């Protein structure tokens, strides 16, 4: 069991490309830390640096009170689960799990006990003699997990372990991984680009972008109080609606609020925070929309609406949607017709305000 601490970690490739631009993360003993971000944000590189598969060009990586920058992967007391599982194709399931232990010179009886214990936990016992190619994707995934478990390492590292599975299996394995980690109480670092996986697995969520940490914290806190517009649009699906505000709009909209600083800003409203109503809310936002598209997913419905911005005095939206378009999420399947004009309102406490560059959250 161990803490993992990253202190001002940098990674610059020989070509001069800076993949990691100074990351500080502290993962407590037994915690499940998820690194999430779009592809190319450096999350996998960071994980591989913790594993020792990439060199550290600046800063320190500390596992269990020991700086491991110069230590070989095998001696860091970590175990890693790879995206493509990286099982040894020519070895049986048993040998795949036993290989690392044998290399450490463990007694064959102890290896047997550990492998059988892991096989029992992961329900792999009937498959120990099979080769990886005779297993299904989910079973291979479990063997990869088993290979990590038998080592009884200080830290588990997961590199997008579920992305090769189909959607249904992914959800099942996600739950299993979480249960397993709770049971073993092993510090874990998990990389994913799937924000749903990140939200459901993490004790600590690290949102990364462009080699930097955008925000660290408890997943729910990050959802509720995203620190930047990047986090706001990355965490939560569908993404938060973002609309630029002119200085006078900031002032008028957030009047009587410490946020009414008279500077230009970006207003954010989550699709699920809207209500369709003809009322207006004092201090809140009311947007008149023309319904352009509707997505019904059963329990909820997403309405894509175009804003009539002159009326609202809010300029076009720079986010993921075409200018002037935003998403409203409503429960159930009863939705307005396409072309209908509706009013979406959001209460004041649900409004997020960011600085104009999107780098800072302005708190009330």
């Amino acid at each position, binding site marked *: 069991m161990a803490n993992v601490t990253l202190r001002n970690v940098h990674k610059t490739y020989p070509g001069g490309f800076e993949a990691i631009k100074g990351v500080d993360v502290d993962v407590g003993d037994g915690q499940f830390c998820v690194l999430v971000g779009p592809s190319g944000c450096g999350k996998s590189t960071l994980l591989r640096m913790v594993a020792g*598969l990439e060199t550290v060009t600046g800063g320190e990586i500390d596992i269990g009170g020991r700086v491991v920058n110069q230590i070989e992967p095998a001696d860091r007391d970590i175990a890693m689960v790879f995206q493509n599982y990286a099982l040894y194709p020519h070895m049986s399931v048993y040998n795949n799990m036993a*290989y690392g232990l044998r290399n450490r010179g463990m007694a064959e009886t102890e290896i047997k006990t550990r492998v059988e214990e892991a096989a029992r936990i992961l329900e792999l016992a009937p498959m120990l003699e099979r080769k990886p190619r005779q297993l299904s994707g989910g079973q291979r995934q479990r063997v990869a997990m088993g290979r990590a478990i038998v080592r009884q390492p200080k830290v588990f590292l997961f590199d997008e372990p579920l992305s090769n599975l189909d959607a249904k299996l992914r959800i099942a394995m996600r739950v299993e991984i979480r249960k397993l980690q709770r049971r073993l109480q092993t510090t874990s670092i998990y990389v994913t680009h799937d924000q749903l996986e990140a939200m459901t697995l993490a004790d600590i969520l690290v949102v990364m972008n462009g080699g930097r940490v955008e925000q660290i914290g408890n997943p729910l806190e990050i959802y509720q109080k995203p620190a930047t517009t990047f986090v706001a649009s990355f965490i939560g699906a569908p993404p938060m609606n973002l609309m630029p505000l002119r200085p006078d709009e900031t002032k008028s909209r957030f009047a009587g609020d410490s946020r009414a600083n008279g500077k230009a800003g970006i207003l954010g409203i989550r699709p699920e925070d809207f209500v369709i109503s003809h009322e207006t809310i004092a201090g809140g936002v009311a947007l008149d929309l023309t319904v352009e598209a509707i997505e019904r997913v059963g329990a909820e419905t997403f309405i894509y609406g175009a804003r009539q911005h002159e009326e609202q005095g809010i300029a076009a939206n720079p986010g993921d949607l075409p200018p002037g378009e935003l998403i409203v999420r409503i429960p159930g399947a009863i939705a307005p017709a396409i072309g209908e004009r509706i009013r979406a309102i959001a209460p004041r406490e649900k409004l997020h305000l960011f600085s104009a560059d999107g780098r800072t959250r302005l708190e009330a």
Partner: protein
Amino acid sequence: MVEHEGIQRYLAHAILWIGISVVAFPVYLAIVASTQDNAVIANGQMSLLPGGHFLQTYYQTIFVGTSGSTREPVGNMMLNSLVMALMIAVGKIAISIISAYAIVYFRFPFRMAMFWIIFITLMLPVEVRIYPTYKIVADLHLLDSYAGLSLPLIASATATLLFRQFFMTVPDELLEASRIDGAGPFRFFWDTLLPLSRTNMAALFVILFILGWNQYLWPLLITTRDDMQTIQIGIRKMITTTDALTEWPVVMATAVLAMLPPVFVVIAMQKLFVRGLVETEK
């Protein structure tokens, strides 16, 4: 695959049979000739059915040799050929797989230069560099030795390139998983890479064994002693151009015997060979 109807199918079969006959008939003739009496062959009255001298001819061929020209029993020539072919096949695979491992998995100065140097040797087969190679082998006193027969043929790039291509398809994660599992470079090579290369090695072995077995020019140059000659040279020497009567049954028996080891190797390794060419175990 396109299913052909009626006549087309028979036509295809007929063509195949003609092809097979063209290949197989001389072989059959060699087998038949090896069982006939030499006088009958010399008369030009050879029957197309096997004669009664099978055991006698093969005994003489393997253990005694022709009465005149070579003085060496074919059994010994076969042994020479076998040792040479095995040394070439095994030596080439061993050296190539190690050099491919170095080129693919290690970062050392002039790595790419090394690769290109190896690559360039593809353009220099033994026939091209035959004089300098002969000179070197002679200076090393390797004439009339197994080392002299096989070493110059071991040095070649084809197998290195093949293994390099194969190693580059092995996922990097396997190496990384091995590193985390505490396997150093040697263990990774031995425990993971070698077993994965098994089918490739088998395919290469078949090709290289036959290549080595069929060598003619090089053994002809560097073996002068009768007890070091290979079977291919032996056959040539048996067919005398002087006034002595060629012992055709023995020559044919030798040809048949010369054919057997490659056939055996192909049959024995066919499964692995085909798998090595078409699929990889990943």
